């Protein structure tokens, strides 16, 4: 992990957190689709980060988000979970390049479709845990299910777009 990559990652964290807390904090498209772009800060962690360090970073991120949402522990739990399964999820889909040689799992290194699938599975796991923990009764189960599917689709789309913008930026140089 070189200094350039660390700076790049810090930029990811700031941009994604800013978007999440100030633009998308209370956004619910059509009343169902919530956007959780801050999980991008976990997906885009440098690939050579040790699992324990990435879980610690995920916990801190989730805890910060929780302070703004007044849901202590909820986002932190979901963030730690996707940080834990990240190395397993990247291998699920066919990828253009070599997983081990990527500096960062993004559109540039693995292709837009692959990154979308990776982001979709991660955000699906994230939203499932979040909305199931949050829902209080079985009567709103189908409503929660709808929220999970819509939110993970929108979040994955948004993260792919975000990563695509970074990719096109570095191509221009």
């Amino acid at each position, binding site marked *: 992990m070189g200094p350039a990559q660390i700076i790049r990652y810090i930029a990811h964290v700031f941009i994604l957190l800013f978007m999440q*807390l*100030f633009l998308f*904090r*209370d*956004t*619910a498209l059509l*009343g169902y689709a*919530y956007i959780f772009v801050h999980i991008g800060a976990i997906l885009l962690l440098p690939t050579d980060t040790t*699992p*324990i360090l990435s*879980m610690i970073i995920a*916990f801190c991120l*989730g*805890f910060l988000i*929780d*302070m*703004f*949402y*007044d*849901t*202590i*522990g*909820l986002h*932190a*739990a979901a963030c*730690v*979970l996707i940080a*834990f399964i990240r190395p397993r999820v990247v291998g699920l889909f066919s990828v253009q390049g070599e997983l081990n040689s990527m500096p960062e799992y993004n559109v540039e290194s693995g292709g837009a479709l692959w990154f979308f699938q990776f982001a979709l599975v991660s955000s699906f796991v994230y939203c499932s845990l979040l909305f199931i*923990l*949050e*829902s*209080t009764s079985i*009567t*709103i189960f189908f*409503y929660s299910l709808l929220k999970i599917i819509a939110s993970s689709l929108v979040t994955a789309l948004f993260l792919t777009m975000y990563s695509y913008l970074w990719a096109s930026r570095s191509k221009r140089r």
Partner: protein
Amino acid sequence: MINLLRFLYDKRNFLFFVLLEVLCGWLIFTFNKYQGAFYFNSSNAVVGNVLSANRNFTSYFDLQDQNDKLVLENVALRTLLEQEKKQRKIEPMTVADSARKAAFDFIPARVVKNSLTDTKNFITIDKGSADGLMPHMGLIGPQGLVGEIKYCSEHYSTGFSILHVKNGLSAKLSRSGAIGSVEWDGVDARFAKLNYIGRHYFIQPGDTVVTSGFNAVFPAGLPIGVVEKVNDDNQSFYNIKVRLATDFGSLDHVYVIRSKAKPEIDSLEVKLDKPKK
């Protein structure tokens, strides 16, 4: 022993994962139950400042809308004042009775954070204990009831809004006088449910729902909402859907209700709860 240590070392990622998740679970179960008793929420000074900076910026976008609402509220209050004056003229007798004094006063505040999207929504305002706020004070907006304060820091306070699935509120149908409880089901921020209204009452869409005044947090007769739909599915209680008076999506100005009678009522109720010797 060496093997055991090696096993633990091999599984260190998984064990660390389990440890963190247990920590999160503990946080969820400890702190979400007792919302009032901890520091890491949106009324803490740092988060509060960030949120109010954000609110300062975004409030310019709906300035016109907020002004219109405040003007409407002023008009309503002026009409009420004139009505009151007329009644005083007819009945000029002055009674020196402490019960006639205003039992509630109001502290204006601005919303710095308000969510609609969770099943347990909280609202954060920019007044705190330094302004005389205390937990369990009522919150109302220009259009109607908003919620109840749960936690105060020095300059910010956090409270439940009605949009909190665990927060029931004593309510009354103003036409029939039936007493029930307004609860939110966690689905749509515009509607809540009115429970425990017996089927012997005649209810129809359009009836107004107001506070009952039973809990000394809110004065009686504050608007909560309007009955939208009544379902009579042969149970002992009606299934009533209420359209909430407050538009939580565009809430900006709120008033904190300080009840002067509340300490007195509370101390009476504490006496009742104490077991007899």
